[in-house]
């Protein structure tokens, strides 16, 4: 078995509290050792990091795929290319695909599709309700047994308070989180942008920002009632974050993530009818963007995800209200998150924690660590190297990035999956 020795790297492993210059040795697909003066085993391949950061492969806890059913948008294989470019080695995949992931066989299928790529672990979410229709519970126990990491209806909110109560209660038996897209459907119906001055000027139907906090407030109370664990996905408003902080202080099992657009862009990105910046939930006012950025640093937000949502050109080349919502994010997740570090509001270890250890812990997946004996999923990146996002020339199939034209600092040099190099070099 060949060994790989990383030299002159900044070892950054928030899970193990490690942030120091050193070396790391990979042997037999796992991390054999790290530290200084490891020596060079005979025949070892040496990767000279020249001071770059070596951290665990990123874990992206919110990814939509085209598979199964919309392979013209994205396949697991094409998503794997984009992920490797972005230093991501594990993704949690949403179940509200054309064929909802509400059957144990589909969970196993998605896991297997990931393994076939050789570069990306697919961690499927199970559908919370049959067909993600929000009517009755899916077979949570069987889905969990097949390998579902948590339960959600993806981009659809569980509207019924009674059903959410049942879900939070029942999922406890299987030790799984319920992941909620917090947006009151009756307030959001038909909306295309956050309600406010900009939507008014553009004549677009608005969604009031409180549509999020209303569901967050309700579900926190249901978590208290049931003792269940609720996770709010892609949180975007100051008001929701206030509620979540309070719930955490109370000791409830409440967690949340946000997605990179919500701390990097505000609603003005949709000016000139830019449908690539049409997302769900919609981009918010600048004050909310600032609140999300602040919550990254203070811990109210547990993890950062890409919220990758592949769309093809025909989904987006439409009048704004008719265009599909969603943006790609795998290739830009690290760079956009590092922009917060370069901006001075966030420490690099905290940023990497939210991209590795934190999502792995929330998903109960054995990734996001440089511990000895762990699978050698690694990301080597230069936090200073500059590049520009250009829709049309990103890796993978889908090109609908909301960050088109954005200059970023921080680029992946290499990605390794179970000790094998899958990007760079």
């Amino acid at each position: 078995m060949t060994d790989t020795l990383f030299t002159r790297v900044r070892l950054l492993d928030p899970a193990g509290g490690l942030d120091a210059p050193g070396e790391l040795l990979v042997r037999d697909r796992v991390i054999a050792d790290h530290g200084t003066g490891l020596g060079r085993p005979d025949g070892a391949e040496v990767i000279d990091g020249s001071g770059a950061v070596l951290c665990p492969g990123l874990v992206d806890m919110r990814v939509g795929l085209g598979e199964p059913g919309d392979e013209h948008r994205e396949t697991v294989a094409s998503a794997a290319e984009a992920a490797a470019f972005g230093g991501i080695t594990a993704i949690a995949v949403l179940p509200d695909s054309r064929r909802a992931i509400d059957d144990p066989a589909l969970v196993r299928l998605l896991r297997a599709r990931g393994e076939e790529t050789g570069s990306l672990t697919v961690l499927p979410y199970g559908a919370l309700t049959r067909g993600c229709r929000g009517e009755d519970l899916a077979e949570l126990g069987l889905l969990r047994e097949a390998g579902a990491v948590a339960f959600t209806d993806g981009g659809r909110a569980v509207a019924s308070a009674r059903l959410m109560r049942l879900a939070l209660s029942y999922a406890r038996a299987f030790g799984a989180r319920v992941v909620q897209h917090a947006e009151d459907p009756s307030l959001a119906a038909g909306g295309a942008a956050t309600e406010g001055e900009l939507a008014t000027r553009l004549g677009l139907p608005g969604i009031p920002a409180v549509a999020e906090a209303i569901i967050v407030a309700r579900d926190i109370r249901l978590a208290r009632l049931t003792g269940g664990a609720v996770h709010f996905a892609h949180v975007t408003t100051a008001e929701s974050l206030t509620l979540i902080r309070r719930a955490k202080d109370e000791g409830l099992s409440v967690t949340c993530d946000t997605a990179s657009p919500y701390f990097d862009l505000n609603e003005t990105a949709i000016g000139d009818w830019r449908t690539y910046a049409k997302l769900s939930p919609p981009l918010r006012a600048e004050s909310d963007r600032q609140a999300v950025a602040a919550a990254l640093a203070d811990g109210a937000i547990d993890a950062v995800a890409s919220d990758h949502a592949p769309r093809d050109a025909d989904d987006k080349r439409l009048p704004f209200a008719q265009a599909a919502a969603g943006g790609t994010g795998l290739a830009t997740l690290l760079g956009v998150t590092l922009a917060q570090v370069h901006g001075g509001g966030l420490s690099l270890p905290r940023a990497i924690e939210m991209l590795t250890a934190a999502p792995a812990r929330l998903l109960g997946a054995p990734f996001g660590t440089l511990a000895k004996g762990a699978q050698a999923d690694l990301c080597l990146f230069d936090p200073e190297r500059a590049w520009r996002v250009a829709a049309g020339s990103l890796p993978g199939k889908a090109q609908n990035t909301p960050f088109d034209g954005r200059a970023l600092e921080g680029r992946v040099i290499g990605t390794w999956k179970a000790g094998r190099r899958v990007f760079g070099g």
Partner: protein
Amino acid sequence: MRHLLAIEGMAPPAIAALLDLAESYVLLNRSGKTPRDRLRGRTLINLFFEDSTRTRTSFELAGKRLGADVINMTVSASSVNKGETLLDTTSTLNAMNCDLLVVRHAQSGAPALLARKVDAAVINAGDGTHEHPTQALLDALTIRRHRGTLENLIVAICGDILHSRVARSNVHLLTTMGACVRLVGPPTLMPAAAERLGVVVFHDMATGLADADVVMMLRLQQERMAGGLVPSVREYFRFYGLDMAKLAFAKPEALIMHPGPMNRGVEIDSAVADHPTRSVIREQVEMGVAVRMAVLEMLSPR
């Protein structure tokens, strides 16, 4: 000026120049001596994805009075996916080398999307709940001809502001030209953050119309009733319909305007709509042709 997609963003001199040019066409239209060689050899296509006889006819007449070849295309509103139709139609039209493209569409931003894909000058003839620039220009011309100026006039725009592209274009134009604009309507028909557009918002006609120089009524679309935004027509008319009693709150000689088509007995009483001296609703239609002639000319470099 390459296209006319919105009033928002237009500078006062550009608006004034259009109004001045339109003013000259009013006189020429009345005398029947319009310059029919002005747009000779140019092709104007009226591309309507939404039915509108009056706006389409007005553009058609404007184009013909300047000598353009005018073609009307009405794309069925019942198409399964209007968006796809829009893009398909775009590439077809671009191949026909048309010079001026007048677009009406039910979706906000559709003319802007189209403008990025065609070589012709695009004129927004109403897009969703976004803008209706030529309506605002013709309203401004009508007011200016009666009051001499737009500056410092109090203009009350009343009714369903939320869904009105006419209201948005008028707000932008009138505030840009120095008028004081008030929006009057029930809170459920008022867009969010409306006051951020530089207007004052009122929810009752008595205070909203007080001392107004112009009262501009908007059409209440019947389907809004289905959305539950107002409980009933009779309640709407009682509180927001313009009758002689409510008109009395405005200045004694206040102008009465409506972009048409009117719902008599819903947002406006017939006695007001047909008022012999104060209603300028029919004159608005006349100004529409002149304004559209001015727009077509401005967008057609010699």
